[in-house]
């Protein structure tokens, strides 16, 4: 089952490892703060140190997200953002051959209503290399996983800190692309401290799989990235970046500054 295919996402982790760095993965809500800014923001992140960009297709009821990303989704929806418009933006990004590869984050109902295969095909067509679906636990993921394997797009699984050994083993066996390690219980949003038990948890995961581990939920500063990079292969930065993008006039400059800052972690 494992590693039936590799794509640019796997390569990004291999390259980062070769440089002895963690792969940096900022999260960007598409259509926030405006639809016009989404493409230039993606380009800015790619040019300033992002290896992978997690792009959010907004959903009206994002239960796994904290207040910052939730509010950005709501504004994006008010801006009229639809999955179709997001794919247009991603297609434009793909044309310009940027360095950072794209992973989509959205909720399962959005995939279902576009039609699973149609959605997956569109992902492949615009060069998306992975999909993160926060409300799709292992039990419900078979159908999507089958399609994604066919189209060579990774389905990213979550591993929460409270996971049982048995479940970890099952998820690790399925894992491809990367494992999305949740650093703390709760929802997305930056927090002051990283959990202390990161090391043992990573060791446990690595007993079952070679798939890279990326840490998400609660990371917002170069200092935290630096701490995390000692244990994991990639770091996801969500709310802390989104908070910098409130004002359309300064969004691009702020994104560039933020990305440079976190990518120059010690």
């Amino acid at each position, binding site marked *: 089952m494992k590693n039936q295919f590799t794509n640019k996402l796997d390569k990004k982790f291999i390259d980062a490892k070769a440089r002895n760095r963690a792969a940096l993965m900022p999260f960007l809500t598409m259509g926030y703060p405006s639809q016009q800014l989404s493409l230039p923001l993606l380009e800015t992140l790619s040019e300033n140190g992002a290896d992978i960009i997690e792009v959010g297709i907004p959903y009206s009821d994002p239960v796994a997200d904290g207040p910052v990303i939730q509010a950005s989704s709501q504004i994006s929806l008010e801006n009229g953002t639809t999955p179709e418009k997001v794919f247009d933006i991603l297609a434009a990004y793909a044309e310009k051959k940027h360095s950072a590869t794209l992973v989509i984050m959205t909720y399962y109902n959005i995939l279902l209503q576009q039609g699973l295969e149609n959605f997956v095909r569109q992902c492949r067509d615009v060069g998306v290399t992975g999909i993160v679906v926060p409300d799709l636990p292992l039990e419900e993921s078979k159908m999507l996983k089958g399609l994604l394997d066919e189209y060579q797009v990774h389905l990213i699984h979550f591993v929460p800190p409270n996971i049982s050994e048995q479940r970890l083993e099952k998820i690790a066996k399925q894992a491809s692309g990367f494992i999305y390690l949740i650093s703390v219980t*709760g929802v997305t949003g930056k927090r002051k401290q990283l959990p202390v038990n990161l090391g043992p948890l990573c060791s446990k995961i690595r007993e079952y799989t070679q798939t890279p581990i990326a840490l998400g939920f609660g990371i917002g500063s170069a200092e935290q990235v630096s701490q995390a990079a000692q244990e994991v292969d990639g770091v996801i930065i969500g709310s802390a970046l989104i908070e910098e993008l409130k004002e359309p006039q300064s969004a691009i400059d702020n994104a560039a500054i933020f990305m440079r800052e976190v990518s120059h972690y010690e």
Partner: protein
Amino acid sequence: MSKLSAYFGEFGGMFVPELLVPALKQLEAAFSDAMVDPSFQDEFQTLLNEYAGRPTPLTLCRNLGTGNNKIYLKREDLLHGGAHKTNQVLGQALLTKRMGKSQVIAETGAGQHGVATALACALLGLQCRVYMGAKDVERQQPNVFRMKLMGAEVIPVHAGSGTLKDAVNEAMRDWSATYEDSHYLLGTAAGPHPFPSLVREFQKMIGEEAKAQVLENEGRLPDTVIACVGGGSNAIGMFADFIDEESVALVGVEPAGKGLQTSEHGAAINKGTKGILHGAHTFIMQDKVGQIEESYSVSAGLDYPAVGPQHAHLAETGRATYEAVTDDEALDAFQALAKHEGIIPALESSHALAYALKLDKEVNNQIICINLSGRGDKDLAHVYNIIGSNNLGSDAS
């Protein structure tokens, strides 16, 4: 392996963040265990009898309707707390203690489930926090006060539309961070597995009692059993014991609000499409790309843009039919029951009643059994504002 199926045909499932899976599995195990544990059943039954006031009576209408049929009311309005909700909150509160948890999280729309949860928590010594849309907090001050009187913390939710579905989202977020000490006491037979099964099991005494009561009075089963459907907890509680009785027609009544032809209704089965909301695959109200739409009903308890997955399955297989009743029809039925029987029903239950009164005009010699899921005291101010005291609406009977 669990004995409970997560699916009803293609409906149901457990579409939740991986983080919540351990909490749901723990709940499923505790629930399966409790259902076969006589001491749990005894304790639940004692609370139902001695605290909540079960069994509730079955009342034959003396004056309402054409007189061509027998119309029975299952009187959940007489239960402590004023509605069927008390049944299942007692069950879940007992489960909370059984899992060794000390805190309860709940969502509430107009406040009815919040009040029910607060009373169960007060009784059983559990800490209780209730998420309630900020708009609803404004509109429903008496219920906010009731919850606070019984020791619950009420947390206004400003996100999204500031109504019930946003309160559910927020409660789920809280639960993801706190489930080691907290139980999420979901208010209806919807949401992720095992909630639809669990809530049904803690409500099915409604139908069991009604069935026995009709049999005793009439020596036969009813022809039609009717209940209103929002998320669908009172209806599934009423239907469950009749599902295998094929001679009994089951009718769920959805809120048609200002009319099914408008966008202001809450009829997820009649007008919705298949999709996922709050962890379950079911009929939901959504736009064509999958964003959830706002529902509407004069009755807050039916104002929800999805329906429990077992109802979706009963509808899909044709075992139950789902009708829709407008605000105006429900308001007429509300007044008719008050005027002719001296019972003021909840606006939710008035939907079931309104459909029963339509049916009564079309059939003869039938036994019609309606779940009168709650009493209408909570709705008086609202109804007063709509119809006024001097302008009582048309007589539905």
